């Protein structure tokens, strides 16, 4: 049975990366010294799946490495080894190394052999040292592995074992690799051919396996079928038992040799899966969807029946049907959008590790508190918000939280707290990063800004305005450049990235008390609330989030600056006017005079601007379509959408549009 395994590689990698995440978060949650067995078990299972998968797919290097990892975990699980900080650190590093190996297997590049070897040495070092001190349950170990020269195994699978995807032949082959094997098959249960169900397993085996094999290794092979068969393993005791010393040396079997021979088995399984990403969806969401489609089909058939023999008396029925259709379509749309939604914990999960490592690095004591991890957000956003979030959290650790001694001096608890909150608020998702560190020193920031020429000397700024300065390009107050931050990627990039996702980031800070960064993001990138406007014969869509208000203005409040640029006065503020018709070169705009049309006051980069259009049409949700797929990026336009009548309308990119108007 030869199957092209390469087609499953993507699934394998996805699952393995998930497994690594589980291991990582599990390791983070372990209480040193008094670890919950169930937690270790979870970690162990994740490691075991990775090992199994990588073995199946021919990634021998990964399988061997995971095997060593697993041995350590197994000892912890059985209570033969204490959960020490040293061991957890080593395991965490191993997860990193595994992730690297997995990455290189995925991209089909060579992994860093030195690093793997180093990590293996470290693991083996721990395995070698710790076990003796905790007195690894010696007697039965000796009896089961060292003293035995082989095993008598009785393996009688239940009839339906093959249905679950386990193949006894494979298991026997695996055993055969361990040593010399003799197999006796029990055929007595085998029925007549007429009664034989080809999917059932009627056979049983007595296996005599000779060789110095540890019980664990055998147990591993049968791990997946334990519950589905009658299994007994009897060690064959050697006629002449080896001297006790040799047996003890043999106590760490099977885990030392494997990696050296790192055979490049995956050469044939090369083609790494392409970069297309997939998404795991809860079955309940799919069920919802199917229900919704069912409803839609019913409504559709009702309507078509109505249309076949329509008379005016049935008008009311038709309208009812249409209302239903509209409701179902909307519900369907909502459920489809929900499929793209994932809990933000996918993004949050990396932070415990980050905080732990960084705080240890910087000699700070920090506790991370997360809430609202189940808040759901669009998958694309999860991927894109990761880096800005990491930057902000790093920033809080590095610049926010003080060293323990400084904190005590300032009368704060020794351990600093960083809180990550996520919640929904009015069609947005809000992520807060709160720290109780030293906050932002307004005078220092202001002086720095003046020094850098960002604000004129002697400027009178509110605290809020000063705090906002840290988002300016070229601003970094870190006195010394540390490993963590201050390497040129500044808060301006964070703000830019978040803005490009259609969101916003704000800071509130009290000097000496701490800072709060608030990120606001739209729930999804695929749909937006828009205001349709008309200029000439053309319809455009303005994202509702950029609109402050829409007004009709009187000629008294219009100013012409130097005969060219137009501004108007709104509540003591002079706001520039941008005529959409001139920026976009739209012919036959109806409103020539500013009094005849409407001004949509929009805001981009916190600067207001009056966008002059002929008229407002309606507010509606629009599905964003890419212009770049078949054409290219267009200045001042972020995308396109299809209106109710099937025609295309362009969605305005307000910040881009304003930049264009400056150029004009």
């Amino acid at each position, binding site marked *: 049975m030869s199957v092209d395994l390469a087609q499953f590689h993507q699934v394998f990698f996805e699952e393995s990366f998930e497994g690594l995440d589980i291991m990582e978060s599990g390791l983070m949650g372990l209480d040193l010294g008094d670890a919950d067995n169930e937690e270790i078990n979870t970690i162990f299972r994740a490691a075991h799946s990775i090992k199994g998968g990588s073995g199946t797919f021919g990634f021998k290097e990964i399988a061997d490495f995971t095997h060593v990892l697993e041995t350590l975990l197994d000892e912890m699980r059985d209570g033969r080894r204490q959960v020490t900080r040293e061991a957890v650190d080593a395991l965490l590093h191993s997860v990193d190394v595994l992730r690297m190996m997995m990455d290189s297997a995925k991209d089909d590049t060579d992994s860093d052999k030195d690093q793997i070897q180093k990590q293996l040495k470290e693991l083996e070092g721990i395995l070698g040292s710790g076990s003796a001190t905790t007195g690894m349950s010696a007697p039965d170990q000796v009896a089961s592995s060292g003293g035995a020269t082989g095993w008598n195994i009785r393996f009688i699978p239940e009839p339906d074992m093959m249905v679950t995807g386990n193949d006894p032949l494979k298991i026997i082959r695996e055993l055969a690799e361990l040593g010399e094997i003799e197999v006796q098959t029990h055929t007595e249960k085998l029925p007549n051919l007429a009664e034989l169900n080809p999917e059932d397993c009627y056979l049983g085996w007595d296996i005599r396996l000779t060789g110095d094999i540890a019980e664990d290794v055998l147990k591993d092979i049968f791990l997946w079928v334990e519950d589905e068969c009658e299994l007994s393993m009897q060690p064959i005791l050697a006629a002449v038992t080896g001297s006790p010393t040799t047996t003890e040396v043999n106590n760490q079997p099977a885990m030392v040799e494997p990696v050296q021979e790192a055979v490049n088995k995956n050469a044939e399984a090369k083609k790494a899966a392409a970069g297309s990403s997939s998404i795991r969806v809860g079955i309940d969401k799919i069920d919802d969807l199917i229900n919704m489609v069912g409803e839609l089909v019913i409504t559709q058939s009702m309507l078509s029946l109505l249309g076949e023999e329509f008379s005016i008396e049935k008008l009311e029925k038709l309208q009812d049907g249409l209302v239903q259709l509209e409701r179902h379509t909307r519900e369907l749309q909502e459920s489809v959008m929900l499929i793209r939604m994932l809990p933000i914990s996918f993004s949050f999960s990396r932070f415990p590790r980050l905080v732990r490592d960084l705080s240890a690095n910087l000699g700070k004591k920090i506790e991370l508190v997360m809430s609202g991890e189940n808040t759901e957000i669009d998958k694309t956003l999860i991927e894109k918000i990761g880096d800005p979030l990491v930057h902000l959290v790093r920033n809080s650790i590095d610049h926010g939280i003080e060293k323990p001694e400084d904190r005590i001096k300032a009368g704060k608890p020794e351990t600093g707290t960083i809180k990550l909150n996520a919640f929904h608020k009015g069609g947005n998702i809000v992520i807060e990063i709160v720290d109780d560190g030293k906050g932002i020193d307004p005078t220092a920031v202001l002086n720095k800004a003046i020094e850098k020429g960002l604000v004129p000397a002697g400027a009178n700024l509110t605290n809020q305005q000063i705090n906002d300065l840290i988002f300016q390009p070229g601003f970094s107050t870190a006195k010394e450049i540390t490993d963590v931050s201050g390497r040129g990627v500044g808060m301006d990039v964070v703000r830019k990235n978040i803005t490009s996702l259609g969101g916003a980031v704000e800071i509130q800070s009290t000097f000496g008390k701490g800072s709060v960064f608030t990120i606001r993001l739209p729930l999804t990138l695929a749909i937006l609330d828009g205001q349709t406007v008309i200029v000439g014969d*053309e319809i455009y869509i303005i994202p509702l989030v950029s609109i402050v208000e829409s007004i009709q203005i009187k000629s008294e409040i219009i100013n012409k600056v130097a005969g060219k640029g137009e501004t108007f006065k709104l509540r003591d503020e002079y706001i520039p006017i941008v005529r959409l018709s001139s*920026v*976009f*070169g*739209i012919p036959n705009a109806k409103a020539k005079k500013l009094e005849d049309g409407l001004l949509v006051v929009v805001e981009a980069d916190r600067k207001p601007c009056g966008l002059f259009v002929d008229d407002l049409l309606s507010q509606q949700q629009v599905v964003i*379509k*890419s*212009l770049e*797929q*078949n*054409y*290219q990026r*267009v*200045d*001042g*336009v972020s995308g*396109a959408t*299809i209106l109710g009548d*099937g*025609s*295309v*309308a*362009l969605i305005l990119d307000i910040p881009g549009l304003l930049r264009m108007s400056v150029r004009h």
Partner: protein
Amino acid sequence: MNATAAVENSEQHDAYHLKEDGDEYLTFRLANEEYGVDILRVREIRGWENVTRIPNSPDFVKGVLNLRGAIVPIMDLRIRFDLPQEEYTPTTVVVVLSVLVNGGEKERIVGVVVDAISDVVNAKMTDIQSTPDFDASIEIEYIRGLATAGEKMLMLVDVDKLLNIEEDVSHFEHDETE
């Protein structure tokens, strides 16, 4: 898997057409001259309908159209070839083509406006360099070669070059700044 299948197909296709002595082309009329495009590149042919203008685009890009949910740019070949412009008539059609950009890595869908569709012919391409006295009013860079189908001479349009919008637009912007 897919790639090899595609190669096989095209080989079959070539083998098939070698017997017929040439490839199949969709021919269309533009200012009383006949042009041809590789029929395998033609996605569909549809009547002219109003499009949504794209601001600040080159003049040969008429706008974008909703083609079953995809946003497809439509360009006027007369303007592209510097031919005199004419009002669109009931026979004016849009030929929807698939265009390979980035050296064939990416496929794009583009519609071109032509005067009318003429025929589907089998023809063999002659290299344009071998016809030195070739004299047409359009820029030669968009023509891949010539072909004769019966009495008529066809100019075979190089679809990928002709519709490589990015190049053209950067060209256009360049012009504008000068």
